[in-house]
Structures are given as structure tokens and as C-alpha cells.
């Protein structure tokens, strides 16, 4: 039996289209509708109520939530980029053997071998009041009293993000960098470029797609995270995702829905801006 190519391609996309419609588009539609409904402590009424949206759009709280999360995002992006780019440069241009390169890249994935809660708990013996870092600093006489901002603070949140998300930056950048032909680097040397100039003029511009993809990963991860921020800040810091989780826990579905839609719009805008820097199709080709 033969099918026309047109039918065949429809059949190929059908399963994914079905899953996407049933599990993403329809629930999103429902969330969107719910965000306009009235509610009380126990149920949602089928009556139009704009309060959730007014709250989401105009309250001082929303601004604070987004300021906090963008601060986290910016710091995390800067540091993961710095670490990710330098590590990728080391892996691609200084590690000679392919096996060693793969092994080191795999080692960078070690933080993912343990489940999230365990990972969070294991910060305590390191950063806690009696933790290794404080003990060491006290022992060296650098501080008189234990630092209390190491754990359950915004510092701790960012630290956990960096620990977890550096790989998301490292991977795509390494991929981009590994695709740069060696002859380009040699040509740049021939032209008299120093190592630093080669990085700035050749490697960095050619890694843009990797940097953009890594940035997308980290943006979505940080904006969507409510777990790490809750645990690592000890519940003291709130982000938009966190606020949504809190409202859901209190059965306040319409305001949670309004904030979700808003967060989604923010993420979509961010991602579409980032996608202008990278041609995904071209990345998939090679």
C-alpha cells in the first residue's frame, strides 16, 4: 500500500500533534478561561471576575516578584556563561583526546545523578551554620561568627541555580565550539591574532547559537522554578512561579491561572527574542 507524501507527512506529525493538543493547548485554554472566573476559598464560580488579572497586572507584588526572578536570572546567566564558556573552551581546545573530553563532559552532569530533594539537603552540611565553609572560615580566623547568609538566602538560591544549570550552558556552547573547524583557528593565528583576539573575534561570534540555546534553557528553568527557590531561600524569597505554587496550594485557582498565563507570555517573549540569534533549523542540520 502506498500513501501520498502529503498524507504520510500528516500521519507522521499526527501523534505529536495529538499529544500537544490534548496535553498542552487544551489545558492552556482552560487555564486562560479560569483566570477570568470568580472564586472563593472552596470553589470557582462560572462568573466573570477581572480581579485576578487586575491583581496580576497592576499590583506592586507582581513587580517585586519579577524583579527578584530577573535578578536571579541575570546573575545566573552571567556566571553560568562565564563558567560554561571557559569550560567549553578548555574542553574543545585544550583537551587533546576525544575520550577524555567526553568523560569530562559527563562529569559535569554529575549533579543530575541525585534527585532534587537530596541535592538540596546536601547543601546543609556545606553551607549551614555548622557547615564546612563556615568551619573553614572560622578556623582560618577570617570571620568571628558563622555567616548566616550562606544558606536559606538569595545567595543560596543563585548558588543552587549555578550548580544545576551550568551544564545547560556548557552543553550547547561546547557543541557550537566543537563545530568550529581547527583551520579557522589556525587561519586566525596566521593572521596574527592573539589567543584572546581569536576568542573574541572568531570563537565567541561562532558560539552565538550555543549561547542562545543555553540562555533559553536557563531562562525557562529559572522562570519556571519554584522548588529550588523555596528550599534554598528557606521560604523567604518569592518569585512569580513560587507565588503561583502558593496560590495553588490555597486553592486560589483563578489568580494562579492569571499569573501562569502572564508568566507564559513573558517566557514566550524572551524565547522568541533569543531565537532571533539562532537558526534552529541550521543547528539541527549538522
Amino acid at each position, binding site marked *: 500500500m502506498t500513501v501520498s507524501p502529503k498524507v504520510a507527512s500528516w500521519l507522521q506529525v499526527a501523534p505529536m500533534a495529538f499529544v500537544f493538543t490534548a496535553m498542552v493547548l487544551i489545558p492552556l485554554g482552560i487555564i486562560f478561561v479560569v483566570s477570568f472566573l470568580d472564586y472563593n476559598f472552596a470553589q470557582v464560580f462560572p462568573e466573570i471576575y477581572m480581579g485576578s488579572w487586575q491583581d496580576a497586572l497592576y499590583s506592586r507584588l507582581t513587580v517585586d516578584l519579577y524583579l527578584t526572578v530577573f535578578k536571579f536570572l541575570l546573575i545566573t546567566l552571567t556566571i553560568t556563561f562565564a563558567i560554561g564558556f571557559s569550560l567549553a573552551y578548555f574542553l574543545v581546545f585544550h583537551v587533546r583526546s576525544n575520550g577524555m573530553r567526553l568523560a569530562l563532559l559527563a562529569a559535569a552532569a554529575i549533579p543530575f545523578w541525585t534527585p532534587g530533594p537530596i541535592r538540596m539537603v546536601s547543601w546543609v552540611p556545606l553551607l549551614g551554620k555548622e557547615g564546612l565553609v563556615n568551619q573553614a572560615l572560622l578556623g582560618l580566623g577570617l570571620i568571628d561568627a558563622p555567616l548566616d547568609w550562606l544558606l536559606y538566602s538569595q545567595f543560596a538560591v543563585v548558588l543552587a541555580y549555578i550548580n544545576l544549570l551550568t551544564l545547560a550552558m556548557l552543553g550547547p556552547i561546547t557543541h557550537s565550539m566543537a563545530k568550529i*573547524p581547527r*583551520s*579557522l583557528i*589556525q*587561519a*586566525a*593565528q*596566521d*593572521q*596574527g*591574532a*592573539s589567543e584572546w*583576539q581569536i576568542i573574541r*573575534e*572568531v570563537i565567541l*561570534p*561562532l558560539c552565538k547559537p550555543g549561547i542562545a540555546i543555553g540562555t533559553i534553557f536557563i531562562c525557562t528553568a529559572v522562570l519556571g522554578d519554584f522548588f529550588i527557590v523555596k528550599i534554598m531561600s528557606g521560604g523567604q524569597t518569592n518569585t512569580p512561579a513560587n507565588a503561583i505554587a502558593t496560590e495553588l496550594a490555597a486553592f486560589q485557582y483563578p489568580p494562579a491561572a492569571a499569573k501562569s498565563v502572564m508568566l507564559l507570555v513573558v517566557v514566550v517573549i524572551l524565547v522568541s527574542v533569543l531565537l532571533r540569534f539562532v537558526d534552529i533549523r541550521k543547528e539541527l542540520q549538522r
Partner: protein
Amino acid sequence: MHLKKIAETPDAPTIPAQPTVRQATKGHRFDVELVAVTKRYSATTTAVDDISLRIPRGSYCCLLGPSGCGKSTTLRMLAGHESVSEGAILVQDVEITTLPPIQRGTSMMFQDYALFPHLTALENVAFSLKVRKVPKEERLKRAREYLELVQMDNLANRLPNQLSGGQQQRVALARSLITRPKVLLLDEPLSALDPFLRTRMRAELKRIQKELGITFVHVTHSQEEAMALSDMMVVMNDAKIMQAAPAREIFETPENAFVAKFIGGHNVLVSEGRAVSVRADRCRIGAQPGMRTAKGEITMIEYHGPFVQISLAGDSGDDLTAVMSDAEYFAQEPRIGDRAAISWEASSEHELVA
């Protein structure tokens, strides 16, 4: 011609700063000297084994050999992209063995052209000036002159992937020349082009080399290309130089059986107990009185237009080739499978070194 202007302005501001390289003496005889150069990758793998070579000034030199013979490694050592295990390299009487690429007075044109894909043709050519912080206007002006030299100025603002292979190559050439090298190194520059473009680009390379008067070192595995271009031909095999001489000398008096076979057009056989080579175009089909002969069976007949090439499986186990003029061939018209003899004058024999 812009070229002349560029070539003859010795103090033009585009001369790369070369603090550690003494300006070459006026009277240098050789642009490149390799002195007992060896490249060892490990105790057992030697890519280049104790080779010595002198390339006279202003020559077009081709390094020719089968893949893995060490010709590319030699070029890369010259360029400074490969370290030298033993020996020394001199460019215009100055030792450059361990200097970084830019200080050697060499410039390399890569096989894959190695153009920066994010920069336009013009910016590619201007790259070396940019890293030396030449002001933007000045460097783009200079780069444009070099693009004119390779007739690419009309496509200056295209990105490399918007250019054809031949066009990319011209840009790569301009980019190599703007550093004003004493020696231009070309790594199989024509291998990625289609045959038509290859012959055209070949002529162009030769023209540019003549006009600039600098030495070109060109790596190739095509003996035809090497013959067409070189003032000096270096045949390499198995990490060693087999013969280095002008093309005519190599063709007429190949040093050994490898050279005779590799450059083609020769029969390598044993005559009167000596290993000799005889040019295929000095051999005729059919036994002739007073001439030396070898017998065999015809295995292949190739018509080339003005001449016809006939291959025989010789009775002695050698492959034999005779080249006949087309008139001669159609007068006799031998066929595949026929028994035949080839014959040659004793004076056409050239004795080979074992």
C-alpha cells in the same frame, strides 16, 4: 595593475610587525631552507624523516606525493601549525623553527579555505589588519585593494556561504596575501574545485606568483598540477624526499622507480640487468629491428584525442605503457587481448637508482 603597486611598496603600513625577525639580507639565495627536519608523532610514527630542501627565491615549488607521504606535515611545519621534532627551518636566511605563524613571514591558504563564516569577504581580508588595530577605514581600503587583485571586489560584502568554492578561494588568497608573506603556503588549494575551475585557478595562481615575485609552496597529489605549475618539484614518499628538481629534470631523469611511476608516463622495467625507466611516449607498439623490446598482452586502450595510450600486462610481470599518435594507432588498430610487443631505442633508457 594594482598588484604591482602593492608588491613594490616595501614600507606600506600593511607590513606586519615582526619584531623578532631580522629583515632578510638583500642577497639571500633561498626563500626556504629545511635542514634535516624530522617530525615524529611517537617513537614509531615518523611523518617526516630527516628531510633537507632549499627553495630558491621567487620559486613556485610543488610538494608532490601520495597521501600520507608527509607533504602536508612538511607544509604545516613550515607554517608553524605543527612543531618540528628535529632540525631547523629558515625563511630568507632567518631561522623561524619555533616562531609563531605571524612572525615567520609565511602565510597559509587552507584546503577548506578557512574563511571566517561570520565575516564578509571584505572583513575576512581585513582580519589581519583588524587584529593589528589598523583603523577601520584604512583597513577596509587596503582589503578592497587585495580583493581587486583577485577580482573579487564586486562581491566584497557577501558572506562566505554566499560565495562559490572558486570565489571563496580567491578571498582566502587575498586574505593570505594581505599579510605580505615572504612565502605563501598552499595546502591542496585546487582539490575542491571542479576540473574546469581548477585549470583556471591554476593559471591564476601562477600569474599572481609571478607578479608578486614571492615563493609559493604548494602541496598537491596531482602530478599534472605539479608539472604545470612548478619551477621546482619535490616528490615525496614515505616521509622522505625522493627527488627535488625542476619538473623537466624530474620527468626526463627520474631518480628512482617510485618517482618514475608516480609522475606517470614512464615504463619501469629491467633491461640488461639494470633497472631503467623509459618514457611511454618513446615506446612504440610492434617489435622493431635494432630496438629493445618487451612482450605482453594488451589490457587497456585509452583514446585521448591527439594520442592513444595502450597498456600491456608484460610477460615479465611489469605493467607496460606505450603512447601512440592517433594516426599511428588507427593505422595499426591493436585490440584488447592481443599479444603485442613494445619497443624503444636503447638511448631512451634512463638508469634508476635502486
